[in-house]
């Protein structure tokens, strides 16, 4: 290549291109490490766990003998907690999202709420566990025998393990209420609701935002009230995105262990919960329990088997979300 006369540029092209090649290789390696680890994980799980995936895993409760141990109560517990969490977070999340996207004015309060939600999304999950313990599990001790509230209202509270107030709402036998919620399914579900609420709100807002403004304008132009526009036009169109967001949030919640440990979900639950006031366990806690037991069959094999089942359920959730989104999406 023609070089300028008296060129002061010692271009050094060969070195520069060699550096470029090595750079490319290093970057590719960075990406491949993740892939490598994922592969190692899957192989490890499959090798250690596949032999132990058998019907007993699903039909038995946890037992001290590995051959008889199963995760029945954990699987059911996880599913019930997820269903309740979805039930609670759906209206709250959509309500907040609708308010923030359609109703809220641009003032300091709205700004504050936005910042607040973003901050909540970054709070470690274990802190939500402690929140749940204090607010739902113990209710700040308001219903213990020496609390000011009990003394003021002359409430009759029990003592011991299931201390607190217990009564039937409106006198109906199956509408029993326990205060505080202790280590019940209800307390667990409420805690998980608070945990995933910020993410549900954020994803619902995005779904609502993606509805074209022209739809709203057309509806308003026809004389509809705000709520009519929102409920009959905007939300139905945004619904696939909203539901996908909730299912993805739930699939994240199903893997959360720490908050429920703090809430008091147990590791040995040899029964299926019959009401929301019952104690419970979930899959990740059962798996954690197995990991910490000394026998190899538990901490290596059963744990792997449990994880494989758990991941399969997780994958199903995610797949449902993705499929739903694809099927119901409207392409503008």
């Amino acid at each position, binding site marked *: *290549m*023609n070089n*300028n006369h008296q*060129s*002061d*540029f*010692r*271009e*050094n*092209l060969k070195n*520069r*291109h060699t550096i470029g090649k090595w750079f490319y290789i290093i970057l590719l390696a960075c990406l491949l490490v993740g892939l490598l680890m994922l592969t190692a994980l899957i192989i490890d799980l499959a090798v250690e766990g596949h032999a132990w995936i058998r019907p007993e895993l699903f039909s038995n409760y946890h037992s001290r003998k590995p051959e008889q141990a199963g995760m029945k109560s954990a699987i059911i517990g996880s599913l019930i907690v997820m269903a309740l969490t979805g039930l609670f977070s759906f209206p709250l999340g959509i309500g907040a999202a609708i308010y923030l996207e359609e109703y809220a004015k641009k003032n300091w309060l709205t700004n504050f709420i936005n910042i607040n939600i973003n901050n909540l999304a970054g709070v470690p999950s274990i802190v939500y566990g402690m929140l749940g313990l204090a607010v739902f599990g113990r209710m700040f001790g308001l219903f213990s025998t020496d609390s000011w509230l009990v003394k003021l209202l002359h409430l009759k509270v029990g003592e011991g393990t299931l201390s607190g107030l217990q009564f039937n709402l409106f006198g109906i036998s199956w509408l029993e209420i326990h205060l505080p919620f202790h280590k019940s399914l209800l307390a667990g579900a409420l805690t998980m609701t608070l945990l995933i609420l910020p993410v549900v709100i954020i994803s619902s807002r995005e779904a609502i935002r993606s509805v074209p403004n022209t739809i709203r304008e057309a509806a308003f132009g026809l004389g509809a009230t705000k709520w009519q526009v929102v409920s009959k036009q905007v939300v139905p169109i945004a619904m696939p995105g909203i539901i996908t967001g909730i299912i993805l949030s739930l699939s994240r919640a199903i893997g959360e262990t720490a908050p429920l440990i703090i809430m008091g979900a147990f590791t040995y639950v040899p029964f299926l919960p019959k009401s929301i006031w019952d104690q419970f366990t979930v899959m990740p806690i059962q798996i954690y329990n197995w990991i910490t037991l000394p026998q190899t069959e538990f901490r290596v094999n059963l744990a792997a088997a449990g994880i494989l089942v758990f991941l399969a359920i997780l994958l199903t959730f995610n797949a449902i979300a993705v499929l739903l989104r694809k099927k119901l999406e409207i392409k503008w």
Partner: protein
Amino acid sequence: MKEELSNSTIISAKNLSVSYGSQEAFHGITLDIPRNKIVAIIGPSGCGKSTLIRCFNRMNDLVPSAKVSGDVFYNGQNIYGPNVDAVQVRRQIGMVFQKPNPFPKSIYENISFGAKVNNYQGNMDELVEKSLKQAALWDEVKDDLTKSGLALSGGQQQRLCIARALATEPEVILMDEPASALDPIATLKIEELMQELKEQYTIIIVTHNMQQASRASDLTAFISLDRTRVDDRVGVLVEYDLTEKIFIKPAEKETEDYISGRFG
């Protein structure tokens, strides 16, 4: 005659065509750029003018779907030849873009960047000063070269980009509508600059502004739509001659139509 041409021709395109994927941008362009002249490339939008000059410094390599056929000779050597390093070509054929794009760094760092990556051995301070002087920006910024390039006005930023291109001591400067984003005063400054620069450099400028082309250039190339391809927008070289000839008595009717504003 041929020797004369090869001495005074710095860049020569031979039957150059470019397509992006299946869409052809322009087709069969052959022209010679003589040394130390200002060549203007005019024509309606969408005919491949920018694509053409991006062939001269191999910037089209950066677009994955771009396919270049034909040859471009720089000082007699085919820059699309097998052993040619595009990085080296770009040091010697510089470019100024339509929208000023200074780096988010200081003025000094902007100018010295090209020289640094190309291992400049001389005195960097002198190079920066010389480049800024050549770009007629030195007096305005000499008091604080550590100021960010983004803190300058639009016209100053563009002159900074010119100075930056000059700092790699190129032979040719390609300008892609350099003044289209600037106000008239800044535009005039750039045009004056071009006249000073042509003593040392060769300038190829794409412009939509016909007054600018007729004022500032020595030669003009008119690229327009290929009339034989009615369904496609493909550019061809319609006419290429001395600027006076193009603007006063063009050979092609199409050229005359464009210059008098009958289409464009």
